[in-house]
């Protein structure tokens, strides 16, 4: 038996013994996943138990090094773990911006002390993080951000406003882009700092979206403090880290366009039936559906190809922009199809008959995909300039 097979057997046995039955139920919404933090939202009492058991083995972040609370697993082992979790339909034990965003940035740009301090609490789900990037007048043009950090010796005094901070109202700490210098070009003088949000100088206000949910906040800093030991990288060089995380974020968002969650084709046949030739009775919808499925297939193949090429050292420039652009447009198409397929059932806003308006709210929420994390227009600009080498005006 190979080492990997042995790992699989052990993992399977451990999961069987340790994953509570209640955590083997499919989640309907991304928002139902456990996110940890000082005041965690608990949807089911077993969530914390499951997170703690996994964290103990480092399996909330299986690919991180053991010294920072990770599992120290190889890529292949991580794959096996995911497969075995999927086998028993185990829920993710913990997901957070700390894991998906700050962790990778700290591992790449953080000092040893910073990693030691911040990574293990993330892995254990003790501290929940949010991201302070966009500002009201710095959306697509992120680098023109104006939140100011004034040097006060061992800390910075921070004043300004962020917007679209995901779950800021539920988070403990923030990783934040601030301006430490405004004398140079707009990309210079930006610094990447971390600070605790449990301070009266920081207020958050949830933003209600058209979907009725409030995953984002406005966040106000009125003389907030960020200690210099929590400056990541050099002062004034935060744009490098920001770009790294933007690329990372794009890839996450673009995955919305890949692997469908439920079969549109089945829903279509159920809704419309087939004609005498065995074709979907609504011929027009049939074509839209086929076009979508064809593109989704080619998009998935592209995700796989680019991943394989990257492993082989062949690279596609700006792949993340292509994925972000195409994946989010595809996800919007999928949601429009879903509304067309489900008709009246997708137009319900509340109540049991509409499962609380799930289809409708998913559809509305998807409109933001091509805006958040860099609009489609920004991605097309990046492709035309950086990949195609088209000239500036």
């Amino acid at each position, binding site marked *: 038996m190979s080492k990997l097979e042995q790992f699989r057997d052990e993992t399977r046995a451990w999961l069987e013994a340790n994953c509570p039955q209640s955590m083997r139920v499919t989640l309907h919404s991304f928002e139902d996943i456990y996110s940890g933090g000082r005041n965690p939202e608990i949807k089911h009492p077993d969530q914390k138990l499951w997170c703690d058991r996994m964290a103990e083995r480092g399996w909330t972040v299986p690919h991180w090094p053991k010294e920072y609370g990770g599992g120290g697993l190889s890529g292949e082992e991580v794959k096996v773990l995911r497969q075995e979790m999927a086998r028993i339909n185990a829920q993710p034990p913990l997901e957070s911006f700390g894991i998906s965003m700050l962790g990778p940035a700290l591992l790449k740009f953080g000092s040893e002390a910073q990693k030691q301090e911040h990574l293990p609490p993330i892995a254990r789900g003790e501290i929940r993080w949010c991201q302070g990037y966009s500002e009201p007048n710095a959306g697509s*043009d992120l680098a023109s951000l104006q939140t100011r950090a004034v040097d006060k010796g061992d800390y910075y005094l921070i004043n300004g406003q962020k917007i679209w901070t995901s779950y800021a109202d539920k988070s403990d700490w923030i990783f934040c882009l601030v301006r430490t210098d405004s004398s140079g070009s707009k990309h210079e003088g930006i610094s990447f700092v971390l600070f605790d949000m449990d301070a009266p100088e920081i207020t958050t206000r949830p933003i209600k979206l058209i979907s009725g949910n409030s995953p984002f906040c406005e966040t106000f800093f009125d003389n907030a403090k960020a200690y210099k030991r929590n400056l990541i990288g050099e002062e004034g060089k935060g744009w490098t880290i920001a770009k790294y995380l933007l690329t990372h974020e794009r890839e996450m968002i673009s995955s919305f366009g890949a692997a469908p969650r439920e079969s549109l084709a089945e829903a279509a046949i159920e809704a419309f039936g087939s004609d005498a030739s065995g074709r979907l009775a609504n011929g*027009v919808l049939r074509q839209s559906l086929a076009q979508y499925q064809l593109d989704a297939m080619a998009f998935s193949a592209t995700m796989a190809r680019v991943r394989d090429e990257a492993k082989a050292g062949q690279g596609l420039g700006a792949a993340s922009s292509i994925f972000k652009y195409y994946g989010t447009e595809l996800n919007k198409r999928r949601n429009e199809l879903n509304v067309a397929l489900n008709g*009246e*059932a997708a*137009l319900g806003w509340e109540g049991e008959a509409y499962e609380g308006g799930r289809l409708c709210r998913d559809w509305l929420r998807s*409109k933001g995909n091509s805006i958040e994390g860099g609009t*489609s227009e920004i991605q097309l600009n990046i492709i035309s300039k950086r990949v195609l080498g088209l000239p500036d005006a």
Partner: protein
Amino acid sequence: MTLVLNEEQLMLKDSAAGFLAQKASVSHLRALRDSNSSSGFDPAVWRAMVDMGWAGIAIPEAFGGLGYGYTGLGLVLEQIGRHLSSSPLEATVLVAATLINELGTEAQKEQWLSAIAAGNCQMTLALQEGKHHAPERTALMAVPKGAGYRLNGSKQFVLDASTAQYFLVVARSAGEVGEGDALSVFIVPADTKGLRIEARSMVDSRAAGVLHLDAVQLGVEALLGEAGQARQALERSLDIANIGLAAQLLGLSLEAFERSLTYLKERKQFGQLIGSFQALQHRAAKMFAELELARSIVLQALQAIDQGGDGLSLLASAAKAKLCEVAELVSNEAVQMHGGIGMTDEHDIGLFLKRARVLQHSFGDYNYHLNRFAQLKGY
């Protein structure tokens, strides 16, 4: 007949625009929504509409209406679309009055149309049974019983269900599901025994509901027109309804487009007005061209109702399909062009997206009508 509005029509359009901007604008919709209004509209606004004659705008003068025809009603509906106004105008005037006018006996027209025109009667059509508009798939049966009929079944997506005083219930008198013939329409008072209304909360904040009929016993006088003969009148009425909805979608799309244009001229990024970016300019110009086509097909279809003659179904499906396509394009682009702010509930632009899809869905969406268009073209 030329494809222009006459003086009278232009005045009607302007006065409707003025009234709605003041009394039934987007901010009124928001207030209705946030107050969880169960009726989905403001009775005082409806009263004012009645006083202006809108309830009888397309009803023949012989039955107490203004006799302005559907071109007139369409102009008002276009303005309703611009302001996302809510009122019984669609359910009662566009749909129910039309069906009574097309299918009813002279006595029934006399009775009901004048009541509607006077604002004394709110009615709504109860047709759809599944997730989608499919009249030929009507399964709700009307079985002869005693001196009348007994109805069992339920109806989805009935607009103004909570406030309607009467329901026009489409039922099958004979034949199999899937056949368009042998349909009848019954006028059913809201307080009839066995009738139950289940209110539903829809994305566009208008009131709709499910109508349950549990052994509802009706007399012969409840029958609109003749038994089993509703098909043709129903089809024509639905054609008219779809043209009216197309007019509303036109107004909605024009308004969403113009608001986006305004935003493009105000919002700066990278030190420039975003409206100066050529890629957005071309998208805006393409939408403008599409909206010009939309205007024309809607006007042509409205005039065709009033002119009578053949071929209305083709024009109705053309107008509805085109406007569904244009409204979907424009409402999506409007949110995208507004960026993050367009995703917030606080901003109005999302309300256009929400109303658009509900209007698109009502009485058949793009897929339904393009399919029908092709069928009517013989392929």
